[in-house]
């Protein structure tokens, strides 16, 4: 992911008329433009959290929760995927536009599911 807080190397068109050079590109990779992101310790914690949630999922699979089984499994999956997206995929530290992209995608996904279930639930 490019560093969206410091986008001088991308917004060349607003600064001057020349496209970015190789030097600009290398600068964009250097330390001064490094991502503002979580530390090593946080990643380890998230990883441990994911492992624990997986363990809970496996444990719950053995217990009969009747109607709650699917809901519990999905709830855990949602927590896990949001951790991965936010930390490992850096969405938490990226520009708002990426959050909007993901929100739009999620809304459309939810609508697809809801509309499909209008068929399944009400079918004779």
């Amino acid at each position, binding site marked *: 992911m490019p560093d969206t807080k410091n986008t001088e190397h*991308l*917004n060349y*068109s*607003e600064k001057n*008329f020349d*496209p970015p050079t190789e030097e600009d590109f290398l600068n964009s990779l250097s330390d001064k433009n490094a991502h503002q992101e979580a530390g090593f310790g946080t990643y380890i914690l998230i990883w441990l959290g994911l492992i624990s949630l997986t363990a809970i999922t496996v444990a719950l699979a053995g217990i009969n929760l009747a109607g709650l089984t699917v809901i519990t499994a999905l709830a855990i999956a949602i927590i896990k995927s949001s951790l991965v997206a936010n930390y490992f995929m850096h969405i938490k530290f990226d520009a708002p*536009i990426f959050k909007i992209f993901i929100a*739009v*995608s999620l809304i*459309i996904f939810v*609508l*697809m599911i809801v*509309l*499909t279930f*209008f*068929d*399944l*639930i*009400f*079918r*004779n």
Partner: protein
Amino acid sequence: MNSQSDTKYIHYLQYRGKFKGIPGWLLTTDHKKIGLLYLIAMITFFLVAMSLGFLMKLEMLKPSSTKGSTLMSAQTYNAVFTLHGVIMIFLFIIPGIPAVFGNFFLPIMLGARDVSFPKINLLSWYFYIAGAVIVLISLHTGGGPIDTGWTFYVPYSIRTTANVSLAVFGAFVLGFSSILTAINFITTIHHLRAPGMKWFKMPLFAWGLYATGWIQILATPVIGITLLLVILERTLGVGIFDPALGGDPLLYQHLFWIYSHPAVYIMILPAMGLVSEIIPTFTKKNIFGYSAIAVSSLAIAFVGYLVWGHHMFTSGISDTSRAIFSFLTFVVAIPSGVKVFNWVATMYKASIDPRTPFLFIMAFIVLFSIGGLTGLVLGALDTNIHVTDTYFVVAHFHYVMFGGMGTLFFGGLYYWFPKMFGKLFNEKIANTGLILFVTGFNVLYFTMFIMGYQGMPRRYYTYLAEFQTLQVISTIGSWIMISGILILLGNLVYALFRGRKAPDNPWGGTTLEWTIPSPPPVYNFEKIPVITKGPYERN
């Protein structure tokens, strides 16, 4: 910047990079050359699929008697209409306008020197060709040409002995081409607009491509997974769709149309963007309702996701969802209507210059309106039951897709041909070709509305004797239409070699592509322009 053409410059067709000749084309990362690579491939596929359509109509000249078939057997007819559909839909209509004109003109219209990811752009073309080659191989291997219709409906597609697996894998590969092109366009629109070009100062063609890009990214993976599941079901018998194994065939239809209905908007939104480019040029006016047209593209893209169930009204889905999908189908007509009214309002009291590209727009509005209004007949639950799976549906989507996107593909080619190749074409011949095309089109497809209403089912290789008069008229229409298309294409090929040199701005257009020389220089702009006014504002 018109003075550029007086000074010597190297245009993109003259430019020799690292490689010459064919490798120079096959390894190019110039968005304009990649656009031309798509153009060559697409015209080829279009002509192949058109020939298949010609054969289908020829078969319909006479009903097959009990003594034997006329031109082809039932099985051959099944394969022919499937191939006609697969090639037209997946290789021409869906990628058509974005891949050819989007690639060629989007960066220029935004004031950029290329798309954001030129190498990925070339990779998209290779995915496109690879997908096409895989489909081609599937015809001659395994159980032979696919015979399921372009929708690959289960359970038949799981049980037929035809080579379904390889053919749908070809469609799966084509999806990558679509997604990568969309990522490229969206990134380009976000990052490479010229200084001063705010969102609402972008040309409307770019808005069309932007809305299309989002549909391509969000919907294409659904069909990709679905087609893989069909392959898995055929090879491993996993039982997701096959009722004999506990699967649900309606699930396939849901998943297929969750992609394929939005795909209809992938086909039409860039075409509508093209209309919004051509009308201001030939009315010499600023477009009426710029923001309404721009936002309606996004609205169509969004609502277009929510109407897929109208393809399944008679498949056995629940009454509740039928009512909901029927309602949403009527809602999607609103933003489409917004566009048409704005176009007409732009033309109102304008000093219209009815040149060839503008006549294509007139043809489009008439044909697309007939297609759109008959879509309402199909979207209403009661009338839908009557005409489902008849020629009425076939006529409707040919009016929408071919009359819509197809007409504008040629319209776009005629509008931008002088810019792309720096040559002028003969307008009288073009107009003759267009008149033949529109006349033949209506004779061919309008009779299909009547036959469909009378109960002629689609996808049959023969018919009852009572339909013969209309079938013959329809077949004659196909001959008129094809001769029109051949004249339209032949005229451009002639112009390519013998045409007079085109000026930089032959039509008096206001968007950025008309400010650079014809054909465009290698990197489009010597200096990136600064935008101070709207795309269609005149002095």
